[in-house]
């Protein structure tokens, strides 16, 4: 049986191998459990139901997909599949790894792949995969032999490997969960991963323990406890007391307290969330004019806001996709130039200014209300009288997705497939949600061609062209990606956040 290490060699992942090495030694000087302070209750432990990256990170401890991503580089790597081959634009062939057993003892084989994709995409269940890989793609799993499957799609889809590498495509046992094909699981988790499910006390904690029969490298920790502590200040107090080893969602204002504590440190990683203000260029009269949207971009001193409100912890965003994502590029910033902004407004016939409503949600993003206020202040200065309105999240998000916000609203997008196409496709006029700007002409053609293209080099060119086009159209007020902050004790090792915000906790341990 090839070990996981062989697999990485095959994949040429020297960097990943180096990352794994320190984990092997020094097992005796570790605390038996790692406790992680979560800000909210994981919504589920069903591998296909979860929505949040925090739940996905827990699933990732216990379950595995056919493919996965390198925790540092985000490159796609084989996991439960040994290889993946594109036979033609509609067909992908995967060879499965042999001799792998689920936590219930069942063997992993082609049946399980078919069962999983049917459950995640073609069942009645309200799953995450249905959103990231819509059933309209017509995915079908053909079993060639017990360890070979072909995935056939009706639509040519170059993104199949990245869809298979997502946490939402965690493999599940065909026999063990046979009764749960049309039902979510709430009391157990049956996967192939390095950790086994112990308990989930809703609103309090999730506990997992090391799987002694795991096929890959043994995890360095015997137990991982996810402890829910909703209040950030209490979470920090628990960290200072040593009740928890890692604190998620450390708010910027509390970072100095962590830095001042000799036992603690701040771990930060650039978040993949891309923040911006979406302009409703379909319905709000002034915002239909590109010059007005550009003027609004030039009116805001982003550097001052990032420095003042976020202690400079972040990177500017100049188009609709973030750094690190496949096929992204940076077209460069709009300058902070209120004079030119005013000139552009005058050119567009709005020299007298106009009134604008800026929507924001509360409790969703850190310092959101303050940010909206500051931006409104900058717009006021070029004569755009801005009124900030806030709304509770569920209603806000419903309006946002339903293309109902006027005139503009704050949002932060994740990237579900880790490719620029994920956000770029949203500007096609036939896209179902978040329709605020319809691409047309050459830009639309570029986006459509990009979606169908398999060739890596051509994809890169098309991606760059589309992103530059969207920058020039100033479809958003482009803001930033912020750092994600964690408070950790100095004894925590092997904890990291993947660039797509999924927590990599398999190799985490705490020194005794």
């Amino acid at each position: 049986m090839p070990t996981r290490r062989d697999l990485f060699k095959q994949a040429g992942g020297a960097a990943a191998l180096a990352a794994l090495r320190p984990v092997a030694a020094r097992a005796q000087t570790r605390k038996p459990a790692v406790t992680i302070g979560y800000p909210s209750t994981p919504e589920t432990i069903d591998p296909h139901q979860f929505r949040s990256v925090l739940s996905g990170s827990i699933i990732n401890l216990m379950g595995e997909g056919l493919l996965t991503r390198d925790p540092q580089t985000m490159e796609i790597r084989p996991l439960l599949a040994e290889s993946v081959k594109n036979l033609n634009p509609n067909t992908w062939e995967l060879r499965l790894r042999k001799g792998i057993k689920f936590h219930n003892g069942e063997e992993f084989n082609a049946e399980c792949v078919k069962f999983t994709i049917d459950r995640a995409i073609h069942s009645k269940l309200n799953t995450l995969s249905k959103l990231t890989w819509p059933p309209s793609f017509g995915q079908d799993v053909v079993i060639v032999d017990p360890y070979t499957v072909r995935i056939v799609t009706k639509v040519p889809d170059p993104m199949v490997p990245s869809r298979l590498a997502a946490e939402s495509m965690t493999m599940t046992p065909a026999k063990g969960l046979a009764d749960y094909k049309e039902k979510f699981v709430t009391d157990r988790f049956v996967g192939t991963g390095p950790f086994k499910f112990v308990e989930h006390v809703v609103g309090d904690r999730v506990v997992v323990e090391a799987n002694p029969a795991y096929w890959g490298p043994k995890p360095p920790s015997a137990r991982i406890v996810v402890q829910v502590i909703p209040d950030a200040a209490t979470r920090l107090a628990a960290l200072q007391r040593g009740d928890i080893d890692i604190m998620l969602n450390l708010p910027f204002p509390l970072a100095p307290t962590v830095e001042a504590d000799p036992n603690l440190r701040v771990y930060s990683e650039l978040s993949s969330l891309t923040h911006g203000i979406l302009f409703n260029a379909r319905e709000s009269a002034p915002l239909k004019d590109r010059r007005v949207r550009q003027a609004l971009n030039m009116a805001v001193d982003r550097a001052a806001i990032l420095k003042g409100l976020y202690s400079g912890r972040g990177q500017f965003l100049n188009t609709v996709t973030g750094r690190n994502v496949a096929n992204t590029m940076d077209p460069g910033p709009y300058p902070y130039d209120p004079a030119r902004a005013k000139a552009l407004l005058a050119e567009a016939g709005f020299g007298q200014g106009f009134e604008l409503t800026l929507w924001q949600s509360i409790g969703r993003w850190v310092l959101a209300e303050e940010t909206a206020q500051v931006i409104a202040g900058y717009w006021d200065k070029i004569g755009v009288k801005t009124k900030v309105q806030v709304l509770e999240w569920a209603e806000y998000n419903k309006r946002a997705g339903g293309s109902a916000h006027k005139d503009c609203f704050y949002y932060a997008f994740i990237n579900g497939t880790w490719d620029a196409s994920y956000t770029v496709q949203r500007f096609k006029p036939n896209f179902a949600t978040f329709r605020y700007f319809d691409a047309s002409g050459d830009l639309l053609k570029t986006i459509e061609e990009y979606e169908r293209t398999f060739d890596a080099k051509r994809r890169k060119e098309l991606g760059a062209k589309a992103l530059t086009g969207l920058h020039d159209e100033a479809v958003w007020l482009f803001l930033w990606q912020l750092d994600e902050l964690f408070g950790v004790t100095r004894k925590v090792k092997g904890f990291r956040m993947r660039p797509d915000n999924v927590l990599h906790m398999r190799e985490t341990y705490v020194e005794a």
Partner: protein
Amino acid sequence: MVFGLVHLSGDPVLLMVSSDSPPDVVATTRHALGFDRPLHVQFGDYVRRVVRGDLGISLRSNRPVSALIWERLPATVELTVAALLIAVAVAIPAGIVSAVKRGSAVDRIAMVGAVAGQAVPIFWLALLLITLFGVHLRWLPVFGRGSLAHLVLPAVSLSTVILGRLARLVRSSMLEVLGQDYVRTARAKGVGELRVLAGHALKNAAIPIVTLLGLQFAQLLGGAVVTETIFAWPGIGRLVVEAIFNRDFPVVQGVVLVVSLIFVAVNLLVDLAYAALDPRIRTEAA
């Protein structure tokens, strides 16, 4: 009466206006859950199930609502009772002393304390307690439920919400009673001051106090949200707020129903207490 309660507490208008499903809920799910049926059909169905003791399944966690409530209710009751006990233990003596020594320095200090308890937001006090007793002195745990020690900080924080109001109410009720004839008579007869206060005055001043305690008990059961959130206390307040924000109707309806049933029980006890305190009320309230 159960039907009436269900009808009003599960008021479809009130609950359904907030029923904007999250954008990611697909139409098929909507159908599977029966939310596409006419409201009155859904409501009739809900009532039939509730009568059978079935509160439905949580949309978010897919677990039975009754199980979710049953897991959380003891934590909330524990916290509420503890907070009320602390409040009573402090507020009643403080209120009596302020009434007897009306206008004195003690009275003034008690009033300032009572007002401060009401004006200081609970998160402020809670964080102060956490920092002092949890982080610096390390005497008490700062989150979760378990031992008696876990209960101290949340119960003390929560009790301040009630304390000030209660102490002031005890004071004002005592003031009224102290001026009345039978208290003067008792004093004139040479009955000891403590007996006058405890035996005659407090008993006669008790009706608003008992009412307030009953109300607070009921209110805290449904609404110690801030305290439960800060101390990660696994209670029903957090459950219902999370459910409201997730639009998890079965959970919201279930909690409202259960809490209102508890209210009815508590208020029955309050009415019985009235009768015990003032026999003249008995015939009327029965």
